[in-house]
């Protein structure tokens, strides 16, 4: 780890101001950033901690929606969605381990947009709106590829509003050591159709599996996608799974998600 300064603003405005400093870096739960710093893979001059900003914390239910503050931990999301939002509950309660869930936040997850992060798949499948200190961005527009989002420099994710589906399921095929998804599929059945968000699999980050959404919207059953296949082109390949394996798993996990949600 290199030396750095740290500030802990208590309002979004203060945080935005602090982030204007040269080589400043926002720090949320730190479950990705701190290990990165420890390995000297980044050397920010200032860390702007977002964890003391009360207005970014908490969960509020709206009509058919759930608004989650950017600074809300995975553990709090898991707690709040128990029995009411199956897919999101599963997703949040299986990120990392209890220590990770006590620190990591939804805002940090979507802002970082790790191609193997869980939350982006839920955002895609639940037609989420990403709120920042300056604007609202639809999930479909927000995630722009591996570690790339629509966020501008110094822009902070203050909250995420998800459309609560009628039925949902999150199916994660875990990398055995990190427990990150090798493939994670979020299946959400909304009144106006089915959305399928896929994470962990693509070189372009999280994506929606359009053919499956179409097939499932007319017939929400595993059989509906039996004839479909996912192209391995542009999928990730690493020591734990080739693009072809990931393509295969996307279909398997989607079918399991549909069966689980049905």
């Amino acid at each position, binding site marked *: 780890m290199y030396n750095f300064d740290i500030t802990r603003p208590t309002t979004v405005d203060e945080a935005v101001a602090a982030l204007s400093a040269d080589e400043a870096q926002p720090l949320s739960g730190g479950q990705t950033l701190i290990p990165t710093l420890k390995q000297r893979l980044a050397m920010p001059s200032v860390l702007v901690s977002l964890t003391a900003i009360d207005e970014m914390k908490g969960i509020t239910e709206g009509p058919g929606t759930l608004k989650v503050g950017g600074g809300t931990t995975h553990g709090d999301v898991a707690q709040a969605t128990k029995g009411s939002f199956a897919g999101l509950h599963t997703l949040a309660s299986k990120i990392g381990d209890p220590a990770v869930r006590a620190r990591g936040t939804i805002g940090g997850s979507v802002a970082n947009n790790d191609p193997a992060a869980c939350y982006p798949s839920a955002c895609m499948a639940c037609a989420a709106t990403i709120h920042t200190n300056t604007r609202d961005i639809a999930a479909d527009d927000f995630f722009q590829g591996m570690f790339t989002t629509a966020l501008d420099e110094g822009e902070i994710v203050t909250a995420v509003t998800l459309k609560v589906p009628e039925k949902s399921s999150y199916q994660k*095929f875990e990398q*055995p*050591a*990190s427990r990150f998804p090798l493939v994670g599929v979020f299946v959400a059945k909304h009144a106006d159709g089915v959305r399928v968000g896929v994470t962990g699999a693509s070189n372009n980050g999280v994506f929606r599996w359009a053919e499956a959404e179409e097939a499932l919207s007319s017939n929400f059953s595993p059989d509906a996608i039996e004839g479909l296949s996912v192209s391995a082109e542009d999928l990730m390949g690493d*020591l*734990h*799974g*080739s693009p*072809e*394996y990931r*393509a*295969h*798993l996307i279909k*398997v996990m989607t079918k399991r998600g549909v069966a689980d949600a049905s």
Partner: protein
Amino acid sequence: MTIAFGNPDRPNSYIGKTVPRPNAERLVQGRGRYVDDIVLPRMVHVAFARSPVAHARITGIDLEAAKAVKGVLRLFTGADLAEICTPWVGVLAHLKGLKSPPQHALAVDRAAWVGEPVVAVVATTRAAAEEAASLVMVDYDDLPVVTDTMTALDPETPLIHPDLGDNLAFRRLHEEGDVEAAKAGAHKVVSARFRTARHTGVTLEPRSILVDWNPAEEQMTAYHATQAPHMMQTVFAEHLAIPEGRVRVICDDVGGSYGIKVHVYPDEVATAAIAKVMGRPVKFIADRLESFTTDIHARDHEIEAKIAVDEDGKILAIDVDDWTGIGPYSVYPRTSAIEGNQVVNLCGGPYDFANYRAQTTVVFQNKTPTCQYRAVGHPIAVAITEGLVDLAAAAIGMDPVEIRRRNMYADDAYPVTSPAKMRFEGLSHHASMDKLMELMDYDALRADQVAARKQGKHRGIGIASFIELTNPSPFMYGIGGARISAQDGCTVRMDPDGSVVAMSGVTEQGQGTEAMLSQIVAEGVGVSPSRVRIITGDTQVTPYGGGTWASRGAGIGGEAALQAGRALRDSILEVAAAMLQADQSGLDIRDGQIVDADTGIERMPLEELGRIVYFRGDTLPKGLPRELVQTRHYITSEYPFAFTNGVQASYLEVDTDTGVVTLLKHWCVEDCGRIINPQLVDEQIRGGIVQGLGGALFEEIHYDQDGQLLNGSMADYLVPMAGEMPDMVVGHVETPTAESELGAKGAGEAGTAGAPAAVMNAINDALRPMGAQVTEMPFTPERILRALSKIQD
């Protein structure tokens, strides 16, 4: 007087019982003393700049930026250390033809694997040393890289060591009978290509060493996490030009070793050399990346193998062609040829057959050097043998248990010599198989498998019989010229309060050596184990010995401890007889009391005897021996190795959609001879099984074609974790070795030896109705799906 092991109610009956581990509470309280816990006055830290490339000429080293870091004291290049530290060559005379070039503590002129230490940086803190190491600028002029084992000897492959003439480190062919004729006349010949992946040991405590040089005494003291303190004493003395008697190696608590910590590592020798130059304590603790790139690797084998059987399933021939790539140097002093040699020695081990041919080819590569790791060669040989036997059974439609029963050496066939020329004193393959069948309820499990199949669940049962080489004699290393002791010793003394101190040449790495020794000494002398203190791991204090490896601690060190304990008992009784004016043969020691042997009536506590001997010796008869210290040594002499045997079984389920294997249950019945501490043996078996399961399902070191290690972290090198482990049932058959009074053979490696083969056979049992088969470890979900043709490129 002999010990009535068969009578559990005999006096002082500690051998054969689970007794508390004397060091457990201390370790659980965090009061262990590992090398990194030791802080000495004036201590400094060393970090290493390591080669980032697999093969390159070193054309320039710029140390200026590194020197400028605050806290940096001194930097050493390979040339600097070569002036005070001689290079070594990892060959053994009895491994004919084995060759390897001289290896230096730090690379001189040339680096030959990613991670090889090039420059040592000494600083007042570890952080400063690491900071400076990252600023060491080395000019590397790339040389051709050799990474593939199977093409290493091809004429167009560049030579790693042009002076050696080729990339062949070692080759051994063993032939017995007429394999070709047997195959030609066989009912079936089945062949398969096996692969075991490159592993490493992943000890919780990384390699650690702290070396001090006292110029006034011209004495070196090395605090070292090692399995072989006396071997390291010799190494430091020889290569740093110090009289052996002026090197002291102290090995306190060690956080796991598995064979990783029994080798000579360049960075550790460099640390010792630097301590001698600087005249102050120098500490080196490997970090996790260094562990992955510099701890020895193992098991990187590719094998073509065949088995020939007749209509009745009788094995007619086994034919094995084994290849392994070992890195650029054969590791000193045990060499990197032993693993391949073991494959030749061990294939076909449980079976009575006539025609055997096995060749191992050991080639150099630009990867981390490989060497002995838990169960050296066994998991490979067992996978080959048991894989072939199952394939043969399937080919002739025979139950896998039945084909084994028809071929295993009969339990009354011993002594016997195998086709590999291994001599077996007494094994129990059939009794072990009987016990396994009973424990696992084989027939019920087969019924469950059928029922599950009807529900679309693909379950499999895998059996793996095995032999394990333990208690090695000098035939393992000594005859090859290595100063590695096969003998071990124990000194036992009684102090005035009647308590007993035992000093042993075998060492504790967390496996319970000290518990095992304490109960043997307790029974040998006649006191409670709580009255025995064990001292291990100090070359200046304990008797000379080999340390702990090749499952020798209990069998060799235990016998020495028993004999020393009984000798002390005799000395005590001689004094007691004089004090009590009794016949010595009529006295015994029980639970710390001198008693009448016949009646058990207490005559005198040991404290009283101690008081008289140490403080009122004037009252004893003049000339009465009063040596309350006794030392005994033990070495095997009848057999080169004490072989053990056993059989494992795995029950698992394969998810044919994802390829995931779920381990449902695992069994192991083993025969390590006399069991000294049932709990410790079971722990060894279970832990060994876990490491074997890791090899079967998870562990694989990956390199790219440039020799870059691709998974040097715990996030990418998959070790087995508790959540994935099945329940394990461990059973025992006891066939004590007649070579020692104790009768103990080794138990440390049996679990690792058999588990991968059991899992492989179980997976293939599950996949067989679908016409699929896997033989390349680890059996990752993707490999299983590819075998099922569910994914294609």
